């Protein structure tokens, strides 16, 4: 393995014990994780976190394309106030499917399971996640859950909206609802397992020298996300089980006809689904921190403010679910408390934005594609945040609830936030994952298309929502036509933007120029390996003596590894542990 790198320098660390040397990653690695095991079977049975991450990425891209295609169909139907080309029942099924797929199959796994899987162990200097087989299992559980959702389509489909509100969802006699909820139930386990895996990995597999204050912010974000995944997802499973019991066994839980309470369902549902919003967005915050420092060549401003605000969001995020229910008939006291807590969760989010912008101050800013997406993120996500404050205000929410204003708000947060962050991360780590560069001018062009298309699609929705246009409407009254048509045009521009991305990424895979190990000159540990990395990520055990964004330190000091020639034995682990301890001492003294 050591042949991958050439040792050019040996640095003696003070104090004592630790012998490290410098490993410069090769420009043209001959042996990478892509060449290590070949063939479809090797991929399907791999326990390599990088390949599993890529399989997730492929699956997420597939579902995104599918659900995105549905969105285009929906927007096309809304071109005219009455029927444009599909029936009401079809429309209702399509928006349900669009929402359910985007949430459960795209947004939830997108950043943690796809990019996180690939990047997290590398940022920790680990060979893999803590439980590689569990990691593969969670991918198959995800695939299995997806199959059930498709089975629902063969069983009359379902038209309840992705929220499955009772008693509509329990009254409906279509079998599709059983299949899709079962699919979501199964999918939840995939999410829980990934979360457990990441928490363990972050606690146990950090390379020597990576103390908690040297953890990349992407890792902090994934850590916060994993906590939410592990704690909140079981409640979704409980909710779905109760729903299924009611549907199949006629046990009255949520349906008033059977003596149940429909508002109880909403509490259950949002107890998961609000934290789930943070499962979707918090990993995006991590990516933004990584990209903005690399392309500013500068230490992050307010490391602890950003790291801890992720945790704060994770915890407060559990206590705000009732803000989806201000008009539902929940108790007045609950409504008041939920509104108050909702504002509290907005603050850590604002803090992040301010810290990111402050990071730019006196930086050395290079506007490459990932950085353009960061700027787009800050622009769109801020609008999502401010409109969230609007929706948290009790009296105003009464007017705006369940209108297109809400639709626009969560698209600004989920698409303008999570998905744009995903694009930033994808363009940032693409050279690492594939070893290839993409066409930069074309990528910038696509980013502009997406920015323009996004705003043309969703800005009019704020206006028509505030004007009163309710969501989930197949027909609408004439006065909203201009807004709907503008929005539809915007969605076509967005679609073109994504097609351009598809084109140049495919081109990059086939004909892309070699990227080299660290095309962005990042200090991040994941960039101190070859591109693509070898099967074990590094040819050595990395040793970290600086924070991940210490751009004032020379690059050489980020390329250290244990000098001892190792073969993964017990003896080696002891050395690593000692190194860890002595490095900690060293930093506190320095």
């Amino acid at each position: 393995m050591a042949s991958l790198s050439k040792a050019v320098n040996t640095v003696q660390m003070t104090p004592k014990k630790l012998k490290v040397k410098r490993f410069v990653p090769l420009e043209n690695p001959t042996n990478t994780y892509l060449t290590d095991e070949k063939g479809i079977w090797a991929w399907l049975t791999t326990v390599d976190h990088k390949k599993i991450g890529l399989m997730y990425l492929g699956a997420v891209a597939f579902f995104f394309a599918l659900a995105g295609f549905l969105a285009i169909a929906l927007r096309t139907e809304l071109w005219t106030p009455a029927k444009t080309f599909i029936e009401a029942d079809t429309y209702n099924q399509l928006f349900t499917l669009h929402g359910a797929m985007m949430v459960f199959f795209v947004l939830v796994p997108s950043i943690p399971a796809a990019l996180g899987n690939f990047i997290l162990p590398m940022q920790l200097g680990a060979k893999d996640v803590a439980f590689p087989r569990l990691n593969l299992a969670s991918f198959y559980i995800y695939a299995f859950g997806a199959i059930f959702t498709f089975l629902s389509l063969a069983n009359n489909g379902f038209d309840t909206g992705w929220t499955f509100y009772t008693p509509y969802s329990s009254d409906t006699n279509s079998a599709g609802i059983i299949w899709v909820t079962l699919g979501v139930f199964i999918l939840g386990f995939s999410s829980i397992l990934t979360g457990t895996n990441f928490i363990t990995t972050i606690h146990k597999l950090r390379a020597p020298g990576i103390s908690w204050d040297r953890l990349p912010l992407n890792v902090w974000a994934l850590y916060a996300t994993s906590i939410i995944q592990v704690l909140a997802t079981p409640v979704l499973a409980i909710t779905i089980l109760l729903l299924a019991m009611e549907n199949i066994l006629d046990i009255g839980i949520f349906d008033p006809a059977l003596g149940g309470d429909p508002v109880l369902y909403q509490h259950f549902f949002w107890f998961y689904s609000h934290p789930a919003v943070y499962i979707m967005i918090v990993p995006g915050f991590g990516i933004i921190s990584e990209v903005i420092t690399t392309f500013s060549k500068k230490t992050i401003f307010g490391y602890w403010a950003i790291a801890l605000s992720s945790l704060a969001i994770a915890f407060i995020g559990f206590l705000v679910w009732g803000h989806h229910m201000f008009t539902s008939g929940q108790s007045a006291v609950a409504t008041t408390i939920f509104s108050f807590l909702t504002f509290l969760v907005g603050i850590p989010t604002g803090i992040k934005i301010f810290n990111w912008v402050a990071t730019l101050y006196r930086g050395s800013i290079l506007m490459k594609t990932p950085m353009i997406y960061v700027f787009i993120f800050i622009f769109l996500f801020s609008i999502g945040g401010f409109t969230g404050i609007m929706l948290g205000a009790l009296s105003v929410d009464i007017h705006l609830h369940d209108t297109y204003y809400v639709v626009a708000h969560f698209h600004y947060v989920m698409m303008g936030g999570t998905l744009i962050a995903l694009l930033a991360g994808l363009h940032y780590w693409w050279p690492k994952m594939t070893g290839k560069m993409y066409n930069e001018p074309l990528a910038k062009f696509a980013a502009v298309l997406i920015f323009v298309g996004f705003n043309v699609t969703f800005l009019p929705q704020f206006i028509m929502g505030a004007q009163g246009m309710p969501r989930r409407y197949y027909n609408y009254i004439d006065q909203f036509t201009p807004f709907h048509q503008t929005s539809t045009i915007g969605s076509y521009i967005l679609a073109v933007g994504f097609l351009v991305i598809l084109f140049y990424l495919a081109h990059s895979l086939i004909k892309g120029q070699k990227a080299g190990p660290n095309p962005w000159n990042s200090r991040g540990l994941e960039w101190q390996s070859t591109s693509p990395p070898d099967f074990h990520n590094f040819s050595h055990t990395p040793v970290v003596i600086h924070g991940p964004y210490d751009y004032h330190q020379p690059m050489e000091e980020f390329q250290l590894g244990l000098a001892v020639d190792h073969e993964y034995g017990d003896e080696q682990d002891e050395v690593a542990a000692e190194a860890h301890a002595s490095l900690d001492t060293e930093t506190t003294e320095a």
Partner: protein
Amino acid sequence: MGRLFDFMLPENKSPLTADSTDWLFHFINEASLVIFLGVIFAMIYFAIRYRRKSEDDKTPLITHNNTLEITWSVIPLLLTFVVFGLGYSGWLNLKTVPNDAYEIQVTGFKWSWNINYENGAQTINEIHVPKGIPIKLVMTSSDVLHSFFVPEYRVKHDVLPNRYTYVWFQPEETGESQIFCTEYCGNSHSNMLAKVIVHEPEDFQTWLDENAGGPTGSPIEQGEQLVTLQGCQACHSVDGTEIIGPSFKGIWNRERKLADGNTIIVDENYIRESILYPGEKIAEGYQNVMSPYEGRINDEEITKIIEYLKTID
């Protein structure tokens, strides 16, 4: 007054319920715009001012600044407290019905609104109210969740099958205001529209007196009015048009094929069963989406409806 974001809101026709909401809407928008422009301006300014000039650029080590962190945490926090307080007080106002409010009963069902007045008058999808006094709607649903929304009054509340909820407003001008259902309720959710029709107080009294006691006339005429008032026409046409359910035209004594393959003659008992327990016998080619009318209609009314259906050829 003319505020920057006026273009976003619909007309305000019930100032007592809408004014505080509108004020807060404008306040949040304007405050957000200032902060948003500040952030975006700083970001773009930095990107230009500090653009990379060479790969060897050195950047200063700036790790954090506690004064700044506290400033940009506390100021937004205080602002959100203000927003919370104003939102809360506006919402309390929406919850607190004036004592002298005029009460009207509203029942939502798939996919119409049925309105009942104190003197037995009934309407469908039209709420007649007098101008200038507070109106309280006491609402319930006879099937799934619905939500009652009048944008021009800034009021909305979910309508539930197992309890009563209410909204109040006080229209200050005559004319019509749009009502939407804003909780997804199935196939024709987007057709579950209605109107508030505001009269001068004396005109309202005249209207109310004219319609006292509900349906009038011969059994057939009453049956016809009941078919309208019960919202049957949202799904069943009387002119042969196929909507969501079978048309009533020529339905009497016809042979009808059922979804389970059997055939049945449309008689009194079939109609009665189809009204009370519509899921029992589904006509071929139609979905089982009708909500049961059990408990919502009595036998006398069913008989009148049957008499009316016999006459539609």
